[in-house]
């Protein structure tokens, strides 16, 4: 071990060997924190009551030093910095907050820590067994701070949470079995764990990160955070649950290859669901959650959402509270980065904004709160990603963040419908405005049914311009009587004829009436030319003499076609809207909270 004090370094002795791990970081790895490059000089492996993690000592490009903690697939980069009001060790209390550089920081956890091993250059002597008290603090915008009390020494660090990607690492360690590297660890058995209870051998998939291994043979829960495996819990009742994704299977989701390393069954009352822990040495941990055929790809959040009433706001977007409950671990197998326990309980709250879901889990026993964001994934995508031979079970019902298939992406159907509607109305308005609606003939006639020598009633008129609709309006001042007018429209030049019948009838009493004294008929597509409208009347024998009027208008505006087109155009959007509303109703039936004021809309997948 080399201890650095300013620019001087001193070799102060050998340290115990570190347990194998799958970290991609090694001494000499370079990265970038904001605008400053850094190089990894050494590391300390620390363990506490419920796990272990690695602190990498780094030197920045400006000759200052700091630490990069690596835990649970996250990185916390910090530099030595003293807060304005450093709390005394005896005043430490979880959830207490104070300002650090003007940033409101909250104590996330306080733990007693022991050095497990170290290597490379370090700023202080860290022999195995060195004890300290470590206090982690979190703040807005991924802010992170740490206070370490070791005897009379107090070290303080301020920085933030980072993802693997943003640190732009280079000179990484080739991780065995990943990214095209041969699986050396498997061949040598370095990562093999013998179950102290049943003796069966399990291969650790994420050594160094894994804290708990649940023996696949006997179900015993083993502590594998450091050195030899220790039994935490004897095997509980062994359930015969076969995970849909067998542990050890790898698959690529959202462009990242993951290996399924852990499997949980959790329950809330009668409701049970399955959770798969996925691991990638670079990206860290994610989950797949399956409830009755509905899948969610879940990532832990570094930034906690703001809770305002029944709303959680993340990155400016509101999510509505859907359910609260208590999740209990019922079955577990594989390996995990935390001390997993049967019957471990978490108070949960789910906020939805399809296809996303924000889940808050509060572990009162661990004094820990976590937030994660899930994205709904089709079962077929999971099956294809992990090359599972059988299809994922058909989803049952509507899941709380399942995208509504009847709501279009970005409101596209709504916009299209509006545009088409506007176009349709425009065409109608322009056409009606351009129609001449010209009265070309209007005549009065008297029909006497008793006069056998009566001449045929004829109206002559001319249709000019384009083919057009012609309207014939008939009127008779009928009083409890009827009149039938048989019309024949004759094109004088071509001899083409069209006939139609107009039946007028009007009856009434002291407080009722029926029928009409006036009726109109529109004759479509009348070609230009001279016409005769020949009228053959017939009337009620009780009123043998009837006076009637006939008016002819050419180039009349037509509304029937427009109404029909309008109904056809709105049929599909109306159907979609109805189905969408029914889908949302089914979703809401599963919620304990009002959805008032919330709309469902799909968002781009690549946001």
């Amino acid at each position, binding site marked *: 071990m080399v201890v650095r004090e300013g620019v001087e370094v001193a070799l102060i002795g050998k340290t115990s060997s570190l347990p194998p791990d799958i970290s991609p970081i090694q001494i000499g790895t370079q990265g970038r924190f904001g605008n400053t490059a850094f190089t990894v000089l050494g590391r300390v492996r620390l363990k506490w009551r419920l796990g272990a993690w690695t602190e990498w000592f780094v030197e920045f490009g400006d000759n200052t030093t700091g630490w990069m903690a690596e835990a649970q697939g996250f990185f916390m980069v910090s530099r030595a910095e003293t807060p304005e009001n450093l709390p005394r060790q005896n005043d430490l209390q979880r959830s207490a907050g104070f300002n650090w550089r003007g940033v409101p920081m909250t104590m996330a956890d306080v733990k007693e820590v022991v050095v497990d091993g170290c290597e490379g250059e370090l700023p202080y002597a860290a022999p195995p067994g060195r004890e300290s008290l470590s206090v982690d603090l979190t703040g807005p915008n991924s802010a992170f701070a740490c206070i370490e009390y070791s005897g009379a020494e107090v070290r303080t660090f301020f920085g933030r949470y980072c993802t693997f990607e943003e640190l732009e690492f280079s000179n990484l360690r080739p991780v065995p079995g990943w990214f095209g590297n041969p699986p050396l660890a498997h061949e040598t058995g370095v990562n093999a764990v013998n179950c102290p209870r049943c003796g069966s051998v399990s291969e650790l998939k994420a050594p160094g990160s894994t804290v708990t291994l649940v023996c696949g043979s006997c179900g015993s829960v083993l502590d594998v955070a450091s050195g030899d495996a220790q039994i935490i819990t004897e095997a509980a009742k062994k359930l015969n649950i076969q995970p849909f994704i067998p542990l050890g299977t790898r698959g690529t989701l959202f462009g990242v290859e993951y290996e399924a390393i852990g499997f949980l069954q959790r329950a809330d009352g009668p409701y049970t669901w399955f959770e798969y822990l996925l691991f990638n040495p670079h990206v860290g941990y994610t989950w797949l959650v399956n409830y009755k055929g509905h899948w969610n790809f879940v990532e832990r959040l570094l930034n906690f959402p703001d809770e305002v009433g029944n709303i959680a706001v993340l990155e400016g977007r509101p999510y509505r509270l859907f359910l609260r409950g208590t999740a209990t671990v019922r079955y577990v197998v594989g390996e995990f980065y935390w001390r997993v326990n049967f019957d471990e309980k978490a108070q949960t709250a789910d906020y939805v904004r399809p296809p996303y879901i924000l889940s808050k889990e509060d572990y009162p026993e661990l004094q820990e709160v976590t937030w994660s964001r899930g994205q709904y994934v089709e079962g077929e995508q999971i099956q294809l990603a992990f090359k599972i031979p059988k299809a994922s079970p058909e989803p049952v019902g509507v899941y709380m963040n399942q995208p509504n*298939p*009847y709501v*279009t*992406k970005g409101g*596209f*159907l709504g916009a*299209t*419908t509006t545009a*088409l509607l506007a*176009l*349709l109305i425009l*065409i*109608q308005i322009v*056409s009606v405005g*351009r*129609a001449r609606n010209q009265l070309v003939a209007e005549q009065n006639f008297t029909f006497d049914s008793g006069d056998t020598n009566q001449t045929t009633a004829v109206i002559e008129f001319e249709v000019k311009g*384009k*083919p*057009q*609709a*012609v309207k014939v309006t008939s009127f008779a001042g009928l009083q409890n009587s*009827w009149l*039938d007018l*048989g019309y*024949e429209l*004759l094109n004088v030049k*071509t*001899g*083409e*004829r*069209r*006939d*139609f*019948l107009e*039946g007028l009838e009007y009856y009434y009493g002291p407080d009722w009436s029926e029928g009409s004294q006036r009726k109109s*008929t*529109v*004759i*479509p*597509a*009348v070609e230009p030319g001279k016409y005769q409208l020949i009228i*053959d009347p*017939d009337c009620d024998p009780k009123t043998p003499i009837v006076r009637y009027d006939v008016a002819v208008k050419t*180039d009349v505006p*037509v509304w*029937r*076609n*427009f109404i*029909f*087109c309008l109904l*056809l*155009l709105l049929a*599909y959007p109306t159907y*979609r809207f109805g189905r969408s509303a029914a889908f949302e109703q089914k979703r809401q039936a599963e919620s304990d909270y009002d959805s008032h004021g919330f709309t469902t809309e799909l968002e781009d997948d690549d946001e």
Partner: protein
Amino acid sequence: MKNGHPLFTIFGLLLCGYLATSHARGWLLFSSLGSKHTTPGQHTFVHK
């Protein structure tokens, strides 16, 4: 369902095209008066 939108757009545009043409040609939907005949003097009227 997303694939239905281009079809819906085409369908809507066809409806608009039909409406514009119907105005230009004087067409009327569901009219029984479209039938024409050219046999002068052989028409008959129907009465009640």
